[in-house]
């Protein structure tokens, strides 16, 4: 197992290097740079050029790349051009909201989607199954921000039972205040993942329910609930867990719309702001961070297979 983990970690190094270099080059080759944004709307061309020189943006790309790699080698992700804060500080400020939003979303999603998908598979062809499929299509089709606005309008503005926006840390404001502020963003973000995971669960469980050992279990008088839980769901878990893991990874870096609608200062918004402002060190540092997160999550998913399927050993 440990050897497997070590091999996996080593194999990701070239992947990370390629991703990072690709992003570095794409940033430098894309139009726009931070100098003009820094200078402000009413600066002169000379001001912009002076700032470009100061930031080293006129240096050859290989020179800029070498400078950055040397910095990375000393464990420094760099300093944001605009705020002059270390990139690690910026990530640290934004990590908790994104992490907790992703966690609450995935917990809520799994609690809803897995039973729903299992039920749909068990009652395949029935109105329950059709409802789950309809919900799945709707969940993929409705844009996140539209759903967000609707939930805000109904639950926050009309019924006034939840706040409109914002993030409150559980460590500063208490668990219940945190939870109140998380309800709407969690509901908004989870719809699409419920749709995805319910559908995946339904397909997996339905396939398992056709297997011989399930027929045998029924023939031996095993109760349906136990058949579903012990035989069907457990054997269907591997693809479901895979999708759940990918969902978490996507959420870490991709919840910018939800964070924008609910005004949550998370990593998604940090990426968007950095891209619009061309804050190169922040963008590069974030991409590197996300790469490591994806690698870690994928590794944990693979390791979790051994729990669900004893036939899988590394």
């Amino acid at each position, binding site marked *: 197992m440990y050897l497997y983990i070590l091999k996996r970690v080593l194999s990701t190094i070239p992947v990370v290097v390629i991703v990072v270099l690709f992003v570095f080059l794409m940033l430098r080759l894309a*139009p*726009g740079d931070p100098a003009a944004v820094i*200078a402000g709307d009413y600066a002169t061309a000379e001001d912009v050029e002076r700032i470009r020189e100061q930031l080293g943006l006129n240096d050859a790309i290989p020179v800029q790349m070498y400078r950055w790699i040397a910095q990375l080698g000393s464990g420094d992700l760099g300093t944001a051009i*605009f705020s002059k804060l270390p990139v690690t500080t910026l990530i640290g400020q934004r990590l908790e909201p994104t992490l907790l939003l992703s966690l609450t979303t995935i917990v809520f999603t799994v609690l809803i989607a897995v039973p729903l998908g299992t039920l749909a598979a068990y009652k395949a062809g029935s109105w329950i199954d059709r409802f789950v499929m309809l919900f799945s299509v709707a969940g993929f089709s409705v844009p996140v921000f539209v759903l967000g606005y609707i939930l805000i309008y109904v639950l*926050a503005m009309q019924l006034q039972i939840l*706040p409109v926006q914002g993030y409150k840390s559980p460590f500063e404001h208490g668990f*219940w205040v945190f939870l109140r502020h998380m309800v709407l963003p969690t509901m908004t973000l989870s719809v699409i993942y419920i749709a995805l995971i319910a559908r995946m669960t339904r397909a997996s469980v339905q396939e398992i329910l056709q297997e011989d050992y399930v027929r045998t279990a029924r023939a031996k008088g095993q109760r349906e609930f136990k058949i579903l839980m012990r035989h069907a769901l457990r054997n269907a878990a591997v693809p479901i867990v895979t999708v759940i893991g990918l969902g978490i990874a996507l959420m870490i870096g991709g919840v910018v719309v939800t964070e924008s609608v609910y*005004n949550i*200062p998370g990593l998604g918004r940090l990426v968007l702001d950095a891209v619009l402002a061309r804050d190169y060190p922040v963008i590069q540092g974030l991409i590197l961070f996300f790469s490591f997160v994806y690698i870690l999550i994928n590794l944990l998913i693979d390791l979790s297979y051994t729990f669900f399927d004893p036939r899988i050993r590394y």
Partner: protein
Amino acid sequence: MLKWFKLRTLSAIAFALSVGLGGMASTDARAESVLKVIPHADLKNLDPIWTTAYITRNHGYMIYDTLFAMDESFTPQPQMVEDWTTSEDGLTWTFNLRAGLKWHDGADVTAADCVASLERWGKRDGMGQQLFGAIESLTAEDADTIVMKLSEPFGLVLESIGKISSNVPFMMPARVAATDAFEQIDDYTGSGPFVFQKDEWVPGSTVVYTKFDDYVPRAEPASAASGGKIAKVDKVIWTYFPDQTTAMNALMAGEIDFFEQPSNDLMPILDANPDVTAEINDPLGNIGFSRFNHLLPPFDDVDVRRAAIMAMKQEDYLAGAFGDQKFWKTCYSVFPCGTPLTNDVGSDLMRTGDIEAAKAALAATSYDGTPVVIMQPTDIPALSAFSLITAEKLRDIGMTVEVQAMDWSTLTSRRALRDPVADGGWNIFHTWWIGADVIDPMAIAFSGNPDAGWFGWPTDAELETARTAFAKASTLDEKQKLGAKVQERLWAIGASGQLGQFFTPVAYRNNVEGLIKSPVQFFWNMSVE
């Protein structure tokens, strides 16, 4: 066993409740008054001399003070200065600081701090550069006295050091002002009514200011940037909202007190809310510009520029970008209408707004079908609309037009290029200036010097002569005559299309009081009941 279980369960429930209720209580208890604001932009950097960004300027007003400041009639008034004298020849100015001025770290504000601050500002600001071009020496005679000796008369001394918008000559401690003007400061000690809480700053999200208890406000009532800056709340929190609809909802739900720039299409909803007031707070508004690149064909030909301007009907731009007419008005002066230099000289060109007349004018020029590249910033709705309207009008008069969509960041990089279009250059971009920034000919937007001017690089020696003379003028009559001359030249050379004057509303809860009418948003004098 059962008893133990019950006890354990009850304890767990009690603990959970205490954590939750404790958490709720901690957020509900308000021992201090807080003004919660949605600013118009994210505060990305903190040095208002290093950048011209308006949000940084607004940040500067929170934590710094100025020697002079503009009142609501745009007359400079003493702020940190107690009194001042001018020699008979107008070449020696002596400023005496008010007593009791302190920096946020407790040290006294001295004349040496102010001299260093002015010098740093003078290296970056256009008006400052003009002023320092006329300064022979600037010294601190003693701890409270600044002496400015001019080598030649300069009629805008107080207007320069009291300017209201970027770059504002904010006063900083000498150790901070010693920072190279082309590097960012990293010490945010000021002497203004609020203190910046750097540890609580989350770039892209939150900025926190606390009241500076040792600030000594002037006795006069607040008037625009001048007068008594009384911090009536203990804390001001800026929370940047990337989503306008959520910002509006947060305001209506009472989670936010003040929304600096709601977009115009939200106004009907805000107007209908009984707990919210939405109004125009900036008397000068903003002036839309359609800026030509004077270096490249076809707009290197003055007649082509003037023909294009003839097609630009202000009502079409303003209605197209802002809708409801209560948010805009036409204005055919290069200076904001309603200000002392507003005039009609040469403005018939801009009043034309007639496609047929413009078509005929273009046909009489040397225009040969060279494509016109318009940069369209799709992430700024008003400028995106301006771009499309200009494209349509130029096509209507017979020009070949290519609209290139991009984000604002790309546009700001590209507009700095003087290269041919094929190498990344451009022909037209659109923008706006706040009225306060183009209130007189010294604005860089009106420069006729391509080597030191603004993007577009018009060239006109007569224009520059008039601007230089304006800087030396001392009476309003002289300034108005020179202002008219500057305008005449700007229209004569077709420097830019002026797309009219538009006004951005503010919105706030009805329990917020003390809003100051001004082109710049200030947060002193404001309280939350």
